[in-house]
């Protein structure tokens, strides 16, 4: 794939920020959007905006086709068995909270175990911490290896026959580590539990096959994979989704409503109360078409080359420390002796370079790493080696700047 040609499809990248060409290295927070996605959303609003599933009129049919067509695209993208297992949500956070409130809260009891890790993003951490508090279940953590990765052995030692639920991120948004979720799923199932996978940092960057992983729930967001914000997906196995309670009651999700009781629509609509995120779903469908036109494996390979190059160049900067394992997804988290992460991000911003600084919604992991915050550069299909060269140049400038004012 040719990243330079791909860049042309992202209008936002063609601009100057603070007098320098924009170098966008914050795709793990949110990715930029190609014209195909922007136009798909624009076309929906200009040409066939209408509510779905109820209108008899032509626009209503077009909107329903667009919305349900996007569901089928998601199904193929993650290789779910059927579209009934694909629920549209507001994003990964909502998806994980749905599982926590609709499934875990009803099936987890005092004395059961919930297993997570300290690497989790707050959105795959707090829901389980709170469910444990609400149900009286025990919250357990798979101990991390020295480089912050989750090993199959450690999972094996932590998960027991009391473990009812394991929630784990596929790819860490801080360390870039790719966790062995397929192997962990086997362990969980052997003990009779369910596994929930936070796929927010995985779906945009590597091939996800929910049947091959054999995960019970899988959550991801559209906006990190070239789609719009406000749309995400919860995949769940049919048998579990059928047992799961709706979390949001209202229009569009009911079968019959009586004075003292109601029944729900069939899957997946029982979880989609209210007017759904129609434009978002259509935009996500366009994003999937776009990603598939390039090929997820080609994207992974491109990011692998970029991250390898970035690690090699960053290591040459004296006093810069990289966190996480060698083999990783397309991001690098680091600190510098001379400057605090926020100061690094501010200096880089004056050079037009956008990175992220802070705790990355991972306070428990920051504690584990014994740092209060870190800086992170993350890559996507539109990034090039020139972007990394600009980053390195900016970091050397930061180092000199802070070195000088201190001397």
């Amino acid at each position: 794939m040719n990243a330079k040609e791909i860049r042309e499809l992202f209008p936002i990248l063609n601009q100057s920020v603070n007098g320098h060409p924009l170098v966008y290295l914050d795709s793990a927070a949110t990715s930029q959007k190609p014209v195909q996605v922007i136009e798909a959303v624009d076309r929906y609003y200009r040409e066939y905006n209408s509510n779905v599933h109820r209108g008899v009129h032509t626009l209503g049919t077009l909107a329903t086709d667009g919305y349900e067509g996007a569901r089928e695209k998601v199904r193929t993208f993650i290789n779910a068995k059927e579209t009934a297992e694909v629920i549209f949500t507001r994003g990964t956070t909502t998806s994980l909270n749905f599982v926590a409130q609709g499934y875990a809260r009803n099936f987890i009891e005092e004395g059961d175990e919930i297993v997570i890790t300290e690497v989790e993003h707050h959105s795959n951490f707090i829901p389980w911490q709170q469910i444990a508090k609400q149900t009286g279940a025990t919250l357990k953590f798979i101990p991390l290896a020295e480089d912050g990765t989750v090993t199959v052995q450690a999972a094996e030692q932590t998960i027991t026959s009391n473990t009812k639920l394991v929630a784990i991120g596929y790819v860490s948004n801080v360390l870039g580590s790719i966790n062995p979720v397929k192997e962990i799923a086997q362990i969980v199932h052997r003990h009779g539990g369910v596994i929930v996978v936070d796929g927010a940092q995985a779906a945009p960057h590597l091939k996800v096959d929910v049947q091959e992983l054999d995960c019970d729930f899988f959550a991801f967001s559209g906006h990190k994979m070239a789609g719009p914000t406000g749309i995400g997906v919860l995949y769940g196995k049919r048998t579990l989704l059928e047992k799961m309670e709706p979390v949001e009651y209202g229009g569009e999700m009911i079968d019959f409503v009586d004075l003292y009781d109601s029944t729900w629509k069939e899957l997946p609509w029982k979880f989609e109360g209210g007017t759904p995120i129609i434009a978002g779903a259509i935009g996500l469908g366009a994003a999937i078409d776009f990603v598939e036109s390039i090929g997820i494996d080609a994207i992974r390979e491109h990011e692998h080359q970029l991250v390898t190059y970035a690690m090699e160049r960053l290591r040459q900067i004296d006093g810069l420390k990289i966190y996480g394992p060698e083999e990783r997804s397309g991001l690098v988290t680091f600190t510098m002796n001379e400057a605090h992460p926020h100061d690094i991000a501010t200096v880089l911003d004056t050079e037009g370079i956008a990175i992220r600084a802070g705790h990355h919604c991972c306070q428990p992991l920051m504690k584990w790493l014994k740092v209060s915050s870190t800086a992170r550069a993350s890559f996507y299909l539109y990034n090039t080696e020139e972007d990394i060269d600009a980053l390195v140049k900016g970091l050397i400038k930061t180092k000199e700047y802070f070195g000088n004012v201190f001397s």
Partner: protein
Amino acid sequence: MSSLDDLYRRVIMDHYQKPRNRGEFEDGALTVNMNNPTCGDRIQLQMKVEDGKVTDARFTGEGCSISMSSASMMTEAIKGLEVDEALARADLFSRMMKGEASEEEIEEADLGDIEALQGVSKFPARIKCATLAWKAMEKGLRE
């Protein structure tokens, strides 16, 4: 780098590198803990208040150059001030960060080193760093 120089004035770096009043009181003091949840900066501010006057202040914490230098300057500035005066300073500082304080007002207040932080107002993402210690002071003295 001129805008950067505005942000990171030498005096700010001096306070960052050699923070004044860093530490804790061993005996009792008015203690406030505050953090900036979006970035992880945190501060523990301790103040000695006697007869309506701030007689001493110390801080510990972790954060960027702006938040830590601001804490250092703030603790210097409030020593010896009446509680009301300290609160008025906090208010002026907050307005200064939002670009709402007039030149005359700033000049009249004779802020000393703190004036160096004026450049932060041009970096909206960093205003919260500068105001952390001041918010802690305000919270402590109001309670």
